[in-house]
């Protein structure tokens, strides 16, 4: 089954559009209200990071099926400046923009699986999954 769909992120309003779109998918999959909020919040953080640090990119949604389980997979892709030291940006409170520095470490706690690939000068790709339980 392949249901992939992507939402471009290039203006600020796309952050709201992406999180509402993702919440609808999560709701249709059968996630409860708390997990819907977690998924929507994670998407909001991913989309805002794209908008702030890479100016543009996209967020792709997929339904994934494992053995006896089902989940939502979200991939945030940009061709922005990339991240030099991943361990640093994963620390609570680390920010280069005067934010709270809560986004990336927060996304990791909000979701079940978290994977980040980034290359300086090339871009960043972050993949997260939330499993239905």
């Amino acid at each position, binding site marked *: 089954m392949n249901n992939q769909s992507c939402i471009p992120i290039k203006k600020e309003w796309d952050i*709201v559009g992406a999180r509402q779109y993702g919440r609808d998918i999560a709701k249709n999959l059968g996630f409860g*209200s*708390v997990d819907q*909020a977690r998924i929507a919040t994670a998407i909001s*953080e991913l989309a805002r990071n794209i908008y702030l640090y890479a100016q543009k990119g996209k967020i792709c949604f997929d339904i994934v099926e494992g053995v006896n389980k089902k989940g939502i997979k979200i991939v945030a892709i940009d061709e922005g400046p990339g991240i030099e030291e991943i361990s640093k940006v994963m620390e609570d409170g680390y920010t280069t923009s005067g934010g709270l520095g*809560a*986004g990336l470490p927060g996304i990791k706690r909000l979701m079940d699986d978290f994977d980040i690939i980034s290359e300086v000068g090339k871009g960043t790709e972050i993949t997260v999954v939330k499993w239905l339980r």
Partner: protein
Amino acid sequence: MMRIPILKLHNYLLISIQIDLDDQTAIQFQEDLLKKIHETGATGVVIDLTSVDIVDSYIAKVLGDVVSMSDLMGAKVVLTGIQPAVAITLIDLGIHLKDVPTSLDLEKGLIKLRQELEE
């Protein structure tokens, strides 16, 4: 961007956020509220979040800043009606809003304000 209505009731300002907040709207609200405090000399503010189903790190920062800025201007802010799912995601984000007064609903928020202001 949308404008969030700010109602005045005696010395208080009441705000009920009914929309999915985008960044611009949040910042505009911050500005509008500070202006309104200045104009009216309000001593208390209740921001009701009953209809808000997502607060991400940016919105949390704006709300936290609104509380500190209002405080500097002499108005106490209470946040009310934070949904369970929002409370849970805020903690997942590592955001504790420790210095921010909160209440379960608007009514309790007004009581809390009165108590804080009498102290």
